[in-house]
């Protein structure tokens, strides 16, 4: 396909970007002793983006023959031309970038492709049966597994010519306990870029059946978390969610240009001196992050962006168009979920640098607070307000862990929370790999960090 796209782009005027994308997914789910889902999907096509007269045009085709792609280029050009009389500020240029020419096939791709359906489905059945048997109070056990095999080929008129094959598996366990009106749900979820060794070697996958059951039993007798502004110690999954939802979205250059709270704050202190925050497709810390990318959907080689350094905001996240306007270098944050999606500015893997404390030391500094565990969903707003959920929490009283609490929602204003961080543990974990980011399109991302101590609003019950 690289040769086909390279031939097609020869002689094209202006900026043309051709992206072949094949997305193969498998998904399996066992629940309550039966097999609820065994399915596959294969979607392939070519997305075509053209910059003509300072305007973007985009088209896509599921017919990957050279003739259909050539027709798609003309359709994208026609779309761009139709925009000329409407667009006020024409795109003046695209930032110079380190355009990729690599061809990468992660060995995990073929290893997981070759693993038999019997083995994959058998593992799901085995885990579901083990979870159901783990405790008599579990009335429904559910285990699901999915994997996305992704092949991309990107060619641009200004020099990108690259291809990659990556695979991202995920495993999820869920247990329903109790009956009638008094039921709880507990679960574990893990997602990585890599093979089964990476997936089942992830710290969250260790004893995930036993841990799911244990959490469910603890939640059965747990109260709701008390409401109010609290000293909290966030687990790495929650730190990842904070980095992604509360900070990451507000520094995406398209949000910044629309007026997000980060606008005009480059060089301004937005967090305590302990806070250094980054995003990158190929991070050096940790292993197998689910948002791993060697190059983005504009063909830009991925490197890391330091968003906050020692508490000071230092950079936004860019595609080539916004990087040109801001005079910054693009680091590979233009991403498209499917061939028929146009690239948007997205995060990849977002993380907070670890500190030098032990978890015990962080807890010791809390007189009356919460250790918040298990990230749920989250959302952020343009003004920096964010909210995210957690599946459970532990009381911290005079530095000691106490009783369990059921789900708690956390909210705050991003930069206020960063300013309140007064302790970071020395350990580091990627812990958001089973999640997807939504911004009109999905994106596989990861996030993580150390345990962090800060102040946050907890939404409990009055």
């Amino acid at each position, binding site marked *: 396909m690289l040769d086909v796209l390279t031939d097609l782009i020869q002689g094209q005027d202006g900026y043309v970007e051709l992206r072949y994308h094949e997305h193969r997914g498998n998904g399996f789910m*066992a*629940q*309550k*002793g*039966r*097999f609820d*889902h*065994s*399915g*596959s*999907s*294969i979607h392939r*096509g070519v997305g075509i983006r053209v910059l003509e007269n300072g305007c*973007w*045009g*985009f*088209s*896509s*085709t*599921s017919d990957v023959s050279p003739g259909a792609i050539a027709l798609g280029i003309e*359709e994208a050009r026609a*779309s761009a031309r*139709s*925009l000329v009389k409407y*667009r*006020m*500020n024409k795109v003046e240029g695209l930032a110079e970038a380190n355009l990729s020419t690599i061809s990468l096939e992660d060995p995990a791709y073929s290893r997981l492709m070759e693993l038999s*359906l019997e083995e994959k*489905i058998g593992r799901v059945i085995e885990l579901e049966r083990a979870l159901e048997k783990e405790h008599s109070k579990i*009335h*429904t056990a559910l285990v699901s597994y999915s994997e996305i095999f992704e092949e991309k080929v990107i060619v641009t008129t200004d020099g990108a010519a690259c291809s990659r094959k990556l695979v991202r598996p995920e495993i999820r366990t869920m247990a*329903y306990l109790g009956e009638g*009106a*008094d*039921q709880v749900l507990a679960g574990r979820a893990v997602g990585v870029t890599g093979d089964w060794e990476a997936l089942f070697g992830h710290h969250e996958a260790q004893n995930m059946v036993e841990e799911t059951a244990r959490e469910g039993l603890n939640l059965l007798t747990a109260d*709701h978390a008390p*409401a109010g*502004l609290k000293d909290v110690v966030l687990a790495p999954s929650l730190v990842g969610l904070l980095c992604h939802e509360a900070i990451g979205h507000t520094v995406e250059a*398209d949000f910044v240009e*629309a*007026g*997000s709270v980060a606008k005009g704050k480059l060089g301004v202190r937005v967090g305590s001196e302990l806070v250094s925050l980054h995003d990158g497709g190929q991070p050096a810390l940790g292993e197998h992050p689910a948002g791993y990318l060697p190059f983005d959907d504009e063909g830009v080689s991925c490197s890391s962006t330091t968003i906050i350094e020692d508490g000071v905001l230092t950079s936004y996240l860019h595609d080539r168009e916004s990087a040109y306007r801001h005079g910054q270098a693009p680091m590979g944050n233009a991403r498209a979920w499917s061939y028929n999606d*146009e690239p948007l500015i997205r995060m990849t893997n977002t993380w907070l640098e670890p500190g030098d404390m032990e978890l015990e030391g962080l807890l010791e500094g809390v007189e009356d607070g919460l250790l918040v565990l298990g990230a*749920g*969903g989250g959302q952020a*707003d*343009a*003004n920096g*307000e964010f*909210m995210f*959920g957690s599946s459970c929490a532990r009381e911290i009283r005079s530095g000691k862990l106490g009783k369990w609490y*059921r*789900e708690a*929602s956390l*909210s705050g204003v991003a930069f206020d929370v960063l300013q309140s961080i007064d302790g970071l543990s020395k350990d580091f974990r990627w812990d958001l790999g089973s999640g997807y980011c939504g911004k009109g399109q999905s994106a596989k991302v990861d996030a993580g960090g150390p345990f962090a101590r800060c102040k946050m*609003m907890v*939404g*409990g*019950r*009055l």
Partner: protein
Amino acid sequence: MNPSKELDRLRGLNAWAIERAMAMGADGAFVSTQSGLSSKVSYEKNDFSLVSSHRGGGLSITIHKDERCGGVGINSFERDEVEGAISRALDLARPTIPDPYIALAPQADYLNLETPWDDELVGMEPEQLLDLLSHLMKATRVDDRVSLDHVAVDRSVGVRCISNSEGMVATDRHAQLNWSLMGMAIEGDDVTGFDYLGNRARRLDDANAKMEASARELSSRLLGQLRARPLEEGYRGKVLLPPSLVEELLVDPLVYHLQGSQIMDGKSRMADSLGEKVAHESFTLKDTPHDTELRGATAFSGEGIPTEPMVLVESGKLKTHVDSLYSSRRRGTRPTGNGGGPHASCLAPGQFDRNELIGRAGRPVLFPSRFSGNLDPVSGDFSGVAKGATLEEVGVKPRPIKEVMISGNIFEILLAPMSVGRELKTDGGYYRLPDILVDEVSVISH
């Protein structure tokens, strides 16, 4: 697109795929095909940003073999790829657990819904979409404090055909104009949160008026959030929910417990509640799948079961559970064509206008426009941030509130006294609902 010709093509493809599946060893097969085209124009960061077009289709096939099933979806109608999908689906079925309750829907007669098909809308050129987008954008930016992050207008046209080896065949089509708006208000250092809304039209001559209404509502909500302050003191009591939150916080969690699939798994708290009180007496919930103004309108379920209007909860009492074909066989009930719950939720209107609802609160009452938080449908517990909230009091200008959290339990709220608004509203999606003044909500100030 000629919908009749395209549907003929899909019917033929489905029949061929089913025949091939049976020849390749399947005991039964279900095929769903859809094809269509769409054009989208976007406005981002206060400027026109992109024109895009897509044309395509897809096929998904589920194979039944030895009481097992496997399914594959592809975005191609090429016969060799369809055969590959059938073979793959057979492979996927083989290692799973046999289940005698798996079945295919029988042949049925379906209501002709006569969904509008506007040839003028179907034939729109990108320039016409750009003109509409321009109109929508200008109507929203009536005040330069309104900043639009993203506005999009898309025209979507498509047809769908589902068939199975029992002889079931059902088709439908759609042609509609959809739009969405997302933005914020900015006044100096005061930046509101994002707010968004959308709607759709099935006729081009309806579009302008509906777009202007969307624009007015969004700009009013955004400007109303400027100079928001935290609530000084929290309370436990009444909150006024708009239709979108009535759906999210009351209807959806309730519907979870009415589904046969949840009952058979022991997850429903309403398995034995038929005829019992599950909500306040002013709460009557219906499924209206033949309301063609709503996106959820359909004459048949995804399995091919005919849909029917139903009263789910009448004056607070549970009237019926809803079932897919599978859950009905498992539970020994009748399939209602509702595997995923209601197709179009509708509440019976109450007797109060919004001012009367505010007055019935007896105190300044929180009126959020969105909810960002966690809701556990099993327990009914929820907590999160009330976004775009105002504090409402009769005769007093609404006061914008920031950073307020709300929490409670949905089932306590459903049973507590509530006052239902008389005006039913829809965003063109899956509901037609009123405002409701509910009680038993914790409102937590910072």
